[in-house]
């Protein structure tokens, strides 16, 4: 059982469930506003996978088991994958590749600006996610990949700013992110004291 749970392919499949569910709901004609659903769902799962990626370090430190690290790259790349879907939905199904309108939208609407900025910052992380890149970049790799702190923050604010009135969901993500980043600050202070 434990062996099965440690199998990366199992988790790779599990992480595809949101996509498969969306495809099923679309095919079944269950959705009244399918485009809105895809936009929201892909955004939600981008945030979830960002939070999961950021959970690996605290889990490792709390459990004392280093094996968690084996899953971090996959989680991060899944965040990137759902972010790509999210952006594609916006560019295609919301704006129909009207580039003039898209540029105007990005400049005019702060929540779109943040979203695009967060996505742009994800690109170098996805590109440098290979073993080879880790070896080549050495210390710089770790510095570069700390950009995820900013990306997650931008993602949460992006959500916060687009909600019409009910902030429940963005608040939940903000709390989770506060805990995940707060833990890192706490560990750092601990190290400085010792």
């Amino acid at each position, binding site marked *: 059982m434990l062996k099965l749970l440690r199998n990366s392919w199992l988790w790779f499949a599990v992480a595809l469930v949101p996509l498969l569910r969306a495809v099923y709901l679309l095919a079944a004609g269950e959705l*009244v506003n399918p485009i809105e659903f895809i936009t929201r769902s892909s955004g939600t799962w981008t945030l979830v996978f960002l939070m999961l990626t950021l959970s690996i370090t605290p889990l490792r430190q709390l459990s004392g088991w280093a094996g968690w690290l084996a899953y971090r790259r996959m989680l991060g790349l899944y965040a990137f994958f759902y972010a790509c879907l999210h952006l594609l939905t916006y560019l295609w199904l919301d704006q129909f590749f009207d580039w003039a309108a898209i540029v105007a939208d990005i400049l005019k609407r702060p929540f779109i600006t943040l979203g695009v900025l967060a996505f742009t910052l994800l690109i170098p992380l996805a590109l440098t996610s290979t073993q080879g890149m880790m070896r080549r970049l050495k210390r710089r790799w770790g510095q570069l990949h700390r950009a995820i702190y900013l990306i997650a923050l931008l993602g949460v604010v992006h959500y916060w700013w687009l909600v019409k009135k009910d902030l429940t969901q963005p608040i939940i993500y903000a709390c989770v992110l506060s805990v995940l980043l707060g833990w890192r600050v706490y560990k750092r202070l601990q190290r400085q004291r010792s």
Partner: protein
Amino acid sequence: MLIRRPSDVLPSEITPRDVFLNRRQFMATAAGSALLAGEAVAALKTVPSRYSASEKPNSLKEITSYNNFYEFGTSKEDPAANAGRLKTKPWQIVVEGEAGKPRIFGLEDLLKLAPLEERIYRLRCVEGWSMVIPWVGIPLSSLLKQVAPTGNAKFVSFETLNDPKQMPGLLTRVLDWPYREGLRMDEAMHPLTILAVGLYGEVLPNQNGAPVRLVVPWKYGFKSIKSVVQIRLQAQQPQTSWNQAAPEEYGFYSNVNPAVAHPRWSQASERRIGEFFKRKTLPFNGYADQVASLYQGMDLKKYF
């Protein structure tokens, strides 16, 4: 997802056959059925109206399963899931304020004021989606005339029921309850403004604002307040819920206007539910010929 179809639909063809045949079953099984269990569906006798749009209405399923009605929750599915708790009988609307003959109307009194009309209207939500809905209702003016508005009656304010026992969404302070809306007197008296008591020829489902709601088709959807219990004639412009919640985002007038963007999104286009491509939003939601004169000389950017 549907591609646009031509809108040369005869009134007799409006209800898709399968919807019509499945309706009893749908009403009995679908979340948030309009009626108490076991009660027969109440068909309403209506006369057609010259104010009806000639576009194809959205399906009953679309109209009744995708709603904003924060008293039952803030997600689109919440009203259909939770509005079954709303008790719509008996129901009273208190009409008071600057009126010579203030009075309380029961629902049955409303039905006597004017012949029920079917009004097929476009509905444009401030969020950027739209539908076409075959409402059943009476002109609001027919009710207001009954109470003899005084010369001071410059505005009309409306309130929704405020009962946490029936409306679980009231437990969260997402808006300052009760939900309030308002119109200028001439807007309220305009023939397009109706009190709706039904849709698709039957009693309003709870999630659509049963038993009686306002419908102002040239304004964003939130102006068309649901489940109305109080109407007040007054001299001052009323406080309205969304305007109070975010004054820069939701104005008192809130006329559909593609030229005035919401601070966080454009209003130039909309997605009609059931369609893949967006369509251009029309000034006053396509009712400019009938209502633009109400706003002559007003700066619509300022009075958004």
